[in-house]
């Protein structure tokens, strides 16, 4: 079993097509909705955590792309500069998915990119600018803060 966080963008012409339910039905992949934003008749944005066997996940992502869903793997979006990080822990105050989490034995901050949803809050919280990369959309930083 492995897990991948993905951002799916459904453009106008596929917005009302039943696609998501097939993830479970045809590919045996478990999905967990982490965030969803639907702008009626314009666009749908969905952040899913997909878990399953590697070949099932690959097949599932290929299927989504075939259906013209824009698939963004979120694990690659945010990076940590290991030389700048001082392991203070400020980022763990805001990380919602435990992608940044403290190892209670060592008190070091561990970064698990596979759990990241690229909300960008860690970039705001880090005092030494160790976190960089692209947040999923400009609003999300502010939206996530208000949530």
């Amino acid at each position, binding site marked *: 079993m492995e897990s991948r966080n993905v951002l799916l963008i459904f453009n106008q012409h596929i917005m009302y097509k039943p696609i998501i339910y097939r993830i479970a039905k045809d590919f045996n992949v478990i999905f967990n909705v982490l965030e969803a934003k639907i702008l009626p008749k314009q666009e749908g944005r969905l952040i899913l955590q997909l878990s399953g066997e590697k070949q099932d996940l690959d097949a599932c992502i290929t299927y989504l792309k075939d259906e013209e869903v824009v698939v963004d793997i979120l694990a690659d979006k945010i990076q940590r500069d290991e030389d700048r990080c*001082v392991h203070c822990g400020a980022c763990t105050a805001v990380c919602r998915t435990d992608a940044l989490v403290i190892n209670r034995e060592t008190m070091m901050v561990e970064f698990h990119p596979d759990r990241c949803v690229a909300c960008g809050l860690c970039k705001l919280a880090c005092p030494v600018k160790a976190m960089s990369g692209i947040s999923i959309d400009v609003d999300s930083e502010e939206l996530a803060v208000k949530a």
Partner: protein
Amino acid sequence: MSDIVIKKSYEEINAKIKKGDAVVVTAEEMAGIVKSEGYKSAFKKVDVVTTGTFGTMCSSGAFINFGHTRPKIKASRVWLNDVEAYAGLAAVDIYIGATQVQEDDPLNKVHPGRFKYGGGHVIEDLITGKPVKLKAKSYGTDCYPLREYEATVTIHDLRDAFLYNPRNAYQNYNCAVNQSKKTIYTYMGILRPNMGNATYSSAGQLSPLLNDPYYWTIGVGTKIFLGGTVGAVTWRGTQHDPNAPRGDNGVVRSGAGTIAVTGDMKQMSAQFIKGASITGYGCSLMVGLGIPIPILNEDLAFFTGVSDDQIFCQVVDYGYDYPNAIGRVIAEVSYAQLKSGFIEIGGKRIPTAPLSSYPMAKKIATILKDWIKASQFTLGQPQILLPSVPYDKRHE
């Protein structure tokens, strides 16, 4: 020295250090020794306990003398990388403060501001050896005729660069929560509404002044680890307050003691001095500082053996109370609870996050221990003691 009983003298301990025979442990290790053997046995065994802390300390800055120009200038306004330094000193002496923000920074005009570059970053850049743009202005005098000066300098070009921090190493500190209904951006980090999270900023059992709660050994002249090199305590810090509430073990339950410290920036390492940008609040400096504590008597063995479960801090609301100077304490929690990742207040489970780095604090205490074990660092006796209160031995 004050009237404390000295059973093992500085001279004895320093003689042992010079011979390489001193038993030196970190405050984290001392907590373990005292827990298993008791403080009386720990006193017999241990000579020095090392401490450390690494966190954001806003009351920090640097005195710089940039050397006389030709012709000479009596600088009245000075900028380093467009961050203004205070120049109301002698001709080419300035003080750059950690929280001074770069000119033209949008500040909090679009809230929360990012505060990308300030005095703390200038200090880090200088320590790293990076070139920094220096700009000076003057009104011109007969003896100092030059009115404008610009140069790109590195720390090697500066005649002197001393870190001088008027308030560092707060003995203890608040745990921050936000009881308001919106997210706030504070010097205690990003705080979620309705007590959605809690932040704290102390190394707890490793923190220097928590290990010498009555300031018997930490005073003016005490040799310390500062920014990767040897520095000194120069005075009590601003806002130093020995009268803070204390637990039965003598440990303060709120802010209390502080120290002013200094050290030569030319000898420092940027690993231990880092410019900080605190979203919505401003710029600052993260400072790495450590102090060795000589175990002169059994009480000091007891104090240095105090562990995170015996050190408490106060939970304060930063949504309304703190900005309005309302001294309400919501609860008291131990550092052991805070370090577990959750605290509980009124039945609500609140995730916690540290702002000061425990791994760095531990690293500093370990480096200091290695220096002393290698006979490279002896202990300095305080020449003037910090204001304190009598020790009433309530724990006995």
